[in-house]
């Protein structure tokens, strides 16, 4: 039995960096205070640790530490950023613009807002997965208050033209929110340079712990406010009540500090490994990379193996290699990925796609093993496939009408 276990699903979550774990450990038992306890040293020490972590996170973004609101993760950040703006600025307008390829945490939040009297425009992306800036500008109306566009897509790694979007938002006096979950800590993400007013992200995608994240809220030019979604003790400047997760926040801070130092070298190394993987797969026939090649994250590739059924392909290697597929995001569903469909892929190519997301702990030999194992899997599936046989015989597969049953 081949017992190797290789993790190429870092867009789902990353392992916590051991340096991060070391930083967190004292805050479970020795320094366990409630950061909101103002009357004794247990609380002061915890508060100090949180302040320090807030600086570390703010440094990564090159923003003021007062602009960082700690949350439980990006889902909460998306909810707080979008619903919080909608509720706070409702008198000004009720229209929000977003993309069809956003994460569910954004799309479902927008749908909720529609039920509550908001109006949402879901813009389509082009074949590369990029927003059409002209369409974006044309979609802005007098009642538009917010544009919500993710920094980098979780499935394809495609990076949106943040600067240009920021300029359009500025020109029209509209707030710009970004789900930057997949970008923070991996590429430079400086919201102030690009005119991003609110930005949600999470520790567990950047080698920090799970269950902690942050929302950046711009404080100057313009001063942005959000309506709290959790009411209670008024923590985090009243924007997010709830006792702070001190060990988690300390870990988040450490992860941000490490990312700032090591991001460039990680990105360079991982993009080489990613390219090696892609080059290797291209030796198989009928292999396509999904999404923009020029504008994407260095550690991600989303590949369709044509005429191969994705779920079956996964079965050939998923004992040993962890990746995500373009179908079965929710394991019981047979629906292909809505993100890939939005890029114009047919159901077949969407179903046969695999997302590889490399990480800080990915090794070169793991890439070589993956290439070998998955190439063999593709071959196995094609040997079994009547569609591949027809393709090889030159039959036009799209023209066949299958007998319904």
């Amino acid at each position, binding site marked *: 039995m081949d017992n190797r276990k290789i993790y190429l699903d870092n867009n789902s979550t990353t392992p916590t960096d051991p340096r991060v774990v070391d930083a967190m450990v004292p805050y479970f038992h020795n320094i366990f205070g409630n950061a909101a306890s103002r009357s004794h040293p247990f609380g002061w020490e915890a508060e100090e640790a949180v302040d320090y972590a807030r600086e570390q996170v703010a440094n990564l973004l090159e923003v003021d530490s007062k602009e960082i609101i700690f949350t439980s993760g990006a889902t909460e950040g998306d909810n707080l950023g979008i619903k919080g703006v909608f509720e706070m600025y409702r008198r000004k307008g009720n229209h929000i613009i977003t993309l069809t390829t956003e994460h569910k945490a954004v799309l479902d939040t927008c749908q909720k807002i529609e039920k509550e009297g908001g109006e949402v425009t879901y813009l389509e992306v082009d074949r590369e997965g990029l927003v059409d800036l002209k369409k974006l500008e044309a979609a802005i109306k007098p009642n538009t208050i917010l544009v919500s566009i993710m920094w980098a897509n979780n499935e394809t790694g495609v990076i949106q033209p943040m600067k240009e979007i920021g300029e359009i938002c500025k020109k029209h006096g509209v707030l710009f929110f970004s789900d930057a979950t997949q970008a923070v800590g991996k590429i430079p993400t400086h919201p102030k340079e690009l005119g991003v007013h609110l930005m949600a992200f999470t520790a567990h995608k950047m080698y920090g712990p799970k269950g902690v994240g942050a929302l950046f809220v711009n404080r100057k030019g313009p001063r942005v406010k959000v309506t709290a979604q959790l009411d209670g003790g008024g923590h985090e400047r009243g924007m997010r009540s709830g006792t702070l997760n001190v060990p988690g926040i300390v870990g988040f801070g450490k992860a941000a500090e490490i990312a700032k130092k090591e991001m460039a070298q990680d990105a360079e190394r991982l993009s080489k490994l990613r390219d090696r993987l892609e080059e290797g797969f291209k030796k198989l026939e009928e292999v396509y990379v999904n999404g923009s090649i020029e504008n994407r994250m260095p550690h991600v590739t989303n590949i369709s193996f044509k*005429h*191969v*059924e994705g*779920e*079956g392909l996964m*079965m050939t290697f998923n004992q040993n290699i962890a990746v995500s597929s373009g179908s079965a995001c929710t*394991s*019981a569903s*047979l629906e292909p990925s809505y993100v890939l469909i939005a890029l114009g892929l047919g*159901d*077949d190519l969407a*179903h046969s796609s695999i997302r590889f997301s490399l990480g800080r702990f990915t090794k070169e030999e793991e890439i070589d093993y993956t290439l070998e194992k998955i190439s063999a899997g593709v071959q196995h*599936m094609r*040997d*079994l*496939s*009547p*569609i*591949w*046989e027809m393709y090889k015989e030159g039959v036009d597969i799209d023209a066949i009408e*299958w*007998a*319904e*049953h």
Partner: protein
Amino acid sequence: MAYSEKVLEHFKNPRNVGTLDKGSNNVGTGLVGAPECGDVMRLQIEVDSDSGTIKDAKFKTFGCGSAIASSSLATEWLKGKTVDEAMKIDNMDIVEELALPPVKIHCSVLAEDAIKGAIADYQKKNGLEVTVDLTASH
């Protein structure tokens, strides 16, 4: 999702993968697709015209592990059966043998339909009365 041992075994070592000469009169071909997932199965039987038994069966499937296992198992079961016996193979027999979960029942339906399609094709080619009901709904 965890697959049963039997599904995994058929998936890794599928039986009777291949292609029979679809032009031959003794060969019946069933080609079916599942609208649920876009999967496609081709199952072929070669019938000994004297005895009416199935001498050989081959398949190729574009589909999930359960579809591949279902068709592999079906070809095993078909060999040596008479056409009449083959007609009685029910998708629920496959579900039971492979321990398929509810979301994977349609994969076994695909196999039953492919068997029926192959039989009907064979009967048509040979001027026999078509005795399978291809419109049966599941």
